């Protein structure tokens, strides 16, 4: 056996883990390093510093002083959570095995304007239908569909059924109060049933650089009408509803629910009624910190076609609140206003 053959067998040992030479240094397992890592991730990925006029360096200085090398993990979590609270963003969360940081001021500081118990006992009265992810009720001349979470799949079959059921009604009430968001796929799937033409519903951009104002170009977002599969298309079935629609919102409508509100608000046949949505116009991006905690921050921005940023919420077309005396009497003021609006 020649020397080159011996070298041939030994050469692979040289490559053992050699790609690690090109790796960046991992964050050390110290309180200071993990605090810095969280701050830096937000610094380079968060999309609303300029919009919310947040001095992130000043925030760091304030909370950095609370870090010490002997603090336990709960205390470290609280310091980072308090720092992230300054972003005033429901899409900014730090998740550990023992807690999840949050800022819920976007709905806790406002009246709820929603009571499902009132709906269930005094309006549905056990006559509602559960059509996929929707609670559906027939007010004889007005249809009602309640969607409680965009995390629940809005199937085409369920939407086909609802559109067909209410095709001869004067209008439809779409109730998304207390819908905290979920999948953006469901936003499009539902909204496209209420139009038969392509509509510009907004524009979007994302962080793509170190600077707080480093963004991609704005990109238009259009809502295309639903087109049934040619295999299953049936001329006798209604797939769209383009008569008047009232969308019910409250402050607990967040994230995908806000996007849905903006999509619907762009349609000429839709009136938004109730309270402002909670906002959440930035889709979050996620990272893992050195100790396994998961941090997410908003990474994008979304505006209406006329330049209104939806991060802090979308105002209704008709501001209506749930009156306390009505609620006690078992009346949903907002729902009653919507029914009257569609029946006039």
């Amino acid at each position, binding site marked *: 056996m020649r020397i*080159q*053959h011996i070298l041939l067998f030994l050469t692979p040992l040289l490559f053992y883990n050699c*790609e690690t030479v090109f790796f*960046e240094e991992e964050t050390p397992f110290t309180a200071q390093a993990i605090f810095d890592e969280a701050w830096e991730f937000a610094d380079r990925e968060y999309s609303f510093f300029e919009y919310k006029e947040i001095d992130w360096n000043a925030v760091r200085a304030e909370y950095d002083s609370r870090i010490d090398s002997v603090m336990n993990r709960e205390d470290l979590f609280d310091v980072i959570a308090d720092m992230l609270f300054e972003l005033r963003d429901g899409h900014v969360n730090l998740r550990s095995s023992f807690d999840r940081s949050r800022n819920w001021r976007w709905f806790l500081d406002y009246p709820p304007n929603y009571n499902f118990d009132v709906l269930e006992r005094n309006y549905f009265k056990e006559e509602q239908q559960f059509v996929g992810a929707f609670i559906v009720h027939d007010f004889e001349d007005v249809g009602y569909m309640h969607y409680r979470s965009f995390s629940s799949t809005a199937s085409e079959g369920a939407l086909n059924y609802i559109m067909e059921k209410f095709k001869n009604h004067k209008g439809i009430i779409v109730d998304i109060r207390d819908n905290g968001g979920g999948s953006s796929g469901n936003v499009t799937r539902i909204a496209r049933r209420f139009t038969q033409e392509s509509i510009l519903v907004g524009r979007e951009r*994302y962080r793509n650089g170190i600077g707080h104002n480093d963004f991609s170009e704005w990109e238009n977002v259009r809502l295309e009408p639903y087109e049934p599969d040619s295999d299953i298309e049936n001329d006798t079935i209604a797939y769209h509803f383009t008569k008047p629609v009232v969308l019910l919102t409250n402050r607990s409508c967040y994230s995908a629910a806000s996007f849905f509100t903006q999509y619907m608000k762009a349609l000429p046949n839709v009136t938004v009624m109730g309270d402002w949505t909670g906002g959440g116009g930035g889709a*979050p991006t*996620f990272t*893992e910190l050195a*100790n396994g905690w998961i941090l997410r921050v908003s990474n994008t921005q979304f505006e209406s076609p006329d330049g209104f940023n939806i991060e802090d919420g979308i105002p209704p077309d008709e501001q209506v609140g749930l009156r306390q005396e009505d609620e006690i009497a078992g009346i949903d003021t907002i729902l009653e206003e919507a029914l009257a609006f569609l029946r006039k």
Partner: protein
Amino acid sequence: MKKALYFFCLFFASTSLLAQNEPTKKEQRKQRKQEQLNQTNRYFVLEVLGTYRNVQDLATSNQIYNGFGGGIGFGGFQMRNNNIQEFRGRGGYNGISSRAGVSTDDFWGNFSYVYLRKLKNPKFFLGGQANFLSQVRYTDILSNSSLHWELVGSLGITARAQSPFTIPLLKKQVATYAQVYLPLIAYVSRPIYGVTVSGEMEHYVSALGRLGNTSMEFGMHFPIRKNNANRLRISYQWDFLRWRDNEVHKVVTGQHAISIGLLVSMIQAENISPNL
């Protein structure tokens, strides 16, 4: 007159007969092809791999994920007097995790075609390679950012050195080789921003420099049994990728693979040693 006619017929008949003995172009092509096959060793390859992956994707976090896995491969390998050609398809899975225990599913696939020409020194070959690499990672806990990927289609140069030797004691003759691939130009696709589940990609065309990518293989192959044309191949391969999306995001991956492959003989040359 009769004599003239007789000689004409004789001349005509003889030229016709001669013409039938010369091979046609089709026959000449067939003959050349057969000569080529007589100088060809061709194998169908099936292999299994054990793998180990290291990855750091700054678009996810600065944590390093690593772990073991496996894969399978198939392909065709052909040796002639003056060239080597190989087509290879491989794919597999690694279960990787960070030091804090966050786990990630790592899927990879690689397709390549290599053409190598023998140099003046018969132990060395030089040629070109077309390569397509796909690496997809899924980290469930990262939700919107759970999916990350690199898709790299590249063209480059490949160099190979090979040499036979005899294993002492066993007195088994094997062919050893070392091969390295260096892409010169590549088409790279990566996630466009942090919400990677949107599936939106950024596409780049890159020359050597921004893209750091290489593949190195060391192995040997030998007959399974004496007088058996089929061969066994054992190899170690290191695949390395370094790509910088922008000033903030960079991905570095390295995979180490040990493979055992069966080379099933399809054509065996009369006068080409498979150990060369």
